[in-house]
């Protein structure tokens, strides 16, 4: 039993890692621009599909880097042409815009790559179990965790120490002041948006290796990511990280005792957090509320 629980906690961490990548991207965009990006799942799916198409030419490793960059570029274009017009308006409008974009993404993905699921093959050495005792620890799962850890660690270092990163964090609290200080807020937001989308694209490539590619694959990961943000506290990136891992572990643990409830448990957690600590675990009072 202890073994089983241990396995599931580690599994939960792996699922949580997915949520974290997705939720951090959402959170970045939400914090600085006040946009709930419904199309985030669509970007994720595109990341996987781009990698699928590119892998035969530039290999898995090339695709792992190039595909998220391409998706980020697409995100940047959409931000410059459409989404930036809605900054400062009621969040309703950006929400509806990205909702519409999500429709278009799903449809275009289906039109280009077909409705049938596509197999995305990862290098052989990654798919083998590492030991027969801990058979569930495949190379790919370790690899996924490593990639997520590097991406998340890199993101936090970037936000903590680079000039751009510090400005993004400052903008989350008080964009007006940052603007007064002479920072080009327009560029800052565009860059930040592309960064968030890059994370979605990366999650898409990783998900492609674990699941099969389908036009609707991103939509399933979107809701848990929302919950991760709320549980962790809107406005706090460490909160999002914590929220993602927590709901992953909670879902994993519930799967041991009561599998039927494993997707409902995250919403129960959210309700409890909202009742006891409405701003979320690491959220700051008064921010975006």
């Amino acid at each position, binding site marked *: 039993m202890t073994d089983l629980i241990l396995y599931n906690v580690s599994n939960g961490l792996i699922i949580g890692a997915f949520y974290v990548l997705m939720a951090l991207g959402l959170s970045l965009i939400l914090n600085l621009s006040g946009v709930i990006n419904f199309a985030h799942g669509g970007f994720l799916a595109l990341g996987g599909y781009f990698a699928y198409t590119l892998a035969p030419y530039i290999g898995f490793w090339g695709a792992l880097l190039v595909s998220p960059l391409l998706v980020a570029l697409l995100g940047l274009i959409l931000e410059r042409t459409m989404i930036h017009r809605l900054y400062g308006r009621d969040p309703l409008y950006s929400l509806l815009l990205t909702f519409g974009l999500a429709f278009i993404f799903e449809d275009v993905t289906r039109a280009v790559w077909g409705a049938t699921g596509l197999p995305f093959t990862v290098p052989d050495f990654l798919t083998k179990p590492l030991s027969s005792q801990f058979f569930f620890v495949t190379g790919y799962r370790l690899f996924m965790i490593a990639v997520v850890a590097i991406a998340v660690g890199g993101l936090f270092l970037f936000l903590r120490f680079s000039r751009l990163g510090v400005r993004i964090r400052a903008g989350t609290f008080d964009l007006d002041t940052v603007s007064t200080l002479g920072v080009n807020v327009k560029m800052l937001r565009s860059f930040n948006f592309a960064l968030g989308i890059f994370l979605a694209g990366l999650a898409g490539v990783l998900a492609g290796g674990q699941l*099969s590619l389908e036009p609707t694959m991103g939509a399933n990961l979107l809701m848990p990511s929302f919950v991760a943000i709320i549980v962790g506290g809107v406005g706090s990136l460490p909160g999002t990280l914590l929220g993602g891992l927590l709901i992953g572990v909670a879902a994993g643990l519930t799967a041991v005792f009561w599998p039927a409830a494993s997707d409902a448990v995250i919403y129960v957690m959210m309700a409890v957090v909202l009742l006891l600590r409405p701003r979320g675990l690491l959220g700051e009072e008064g921010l975006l509320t």
Partner: protein
Amino acid sequence: MAQVDRRTVLKAGAALAGSALATPAILTYGRGESPVKLGMVDPLTGVYAAVALSEVAGAKVAVEDINKKGGILGREVELLVEDSANNVGTGVQKARKLIDRDRVNCVIGDVNSAIALAMAGVTSEKGVLHIVSGGHTDAVTGKDCHWNVFRVCNTTTMDVNGIADTVIEKLGKKWYFLTPDYAYGHSVQDAFIRKLKAAGGEYAGDLVPLGTADYSAHLIKAKAYNPDVLINVMGGGDQVNSLKQFVGFGLNHQMAVSGTLFELESLRAVPPEALIGWWTMEWWWDQPDNPHVKVFVDKMRKATGHTPSARNWFGYTSVWTFALVANHAKSLEGVKLAHALEGFKLPPEVALQPGTPYYRPGDHELMSTMFAGEAHPAKGNPDNMFTVHSLVPGEKAAGPVAETGCTIHWS
């Protein structure tokens, strides 16, 4: 005043009738020109899009065929395809639209059993023949059967019975279930358990939420139970994902895997190493002894660029069924067609399988042959990913009508 009105009306009516009698040639000509309309409702968008599009492709090829061979009652056939978007409300609305506005003579669909059942409510109320091409839930030709509803694809129970004996015989009697936690999954699992209990086997299992991304928790439990066979009831993308992970963890060296359906559309979506296990095919393209099948395969390849799947055959057969029975009964009227379809046998060029499938009178289910066998990485032809080991006749898999729970009330 009232009398005058009535008289005017009568006169006008007589004039109309007279003109109709006087110009019969023009009227028949006009009637010959108006096409016979067939409505098809399928989830062209959403999670079932791949299989739904296959059904539509098959149906379109059938319509071409029929028009080449003289149409229905000498009239051209027109197929109207509507997207149910995998949403019951939309599906019902589309069925109403096809019947009320487009005046179709037959409705085909839906892949999603829930939509098919809800549509059956509309079609039976309106008295239109309804052919369910690809919704598998027992209830369609079981406890929720209707006088006007006929089904081409199998019931879930038939799919289970098609493979269960093979599994017990060849693979063993200790099973572990991986079952999606919703109505369809439960009914499949129950049917499997009935078979297993009769054979004196043992089992354990997990109910898995739909759309689960990570199966390791369930696979760990399966490994600990150490069964002969993992019965994988997951469908569509969930089936593909769970099999990928099953192989990824190396469990394929420890136990066999089996389940009801592993459709060609899904076979194409898994990497070669995950092409394993014992399954039922409701129709399979590789039937070297059957010349009609070769013609059909060539036709479908020309139309879609792919080797046909069971779903292509469902669509094809559904449309042909309507054409054949309408020409046979010389009518387009729902009640007449439904009576004529009871016990109706499909000719070999439509059946495309060994034996003669027919629509069983008691529950309106097509008694077609099932192909039980094993999946494997493609050999030669990229679509040669499945080898048939045994053929199971429909009647044997379906069991007696009395067990389906269907009583047909003619209205």
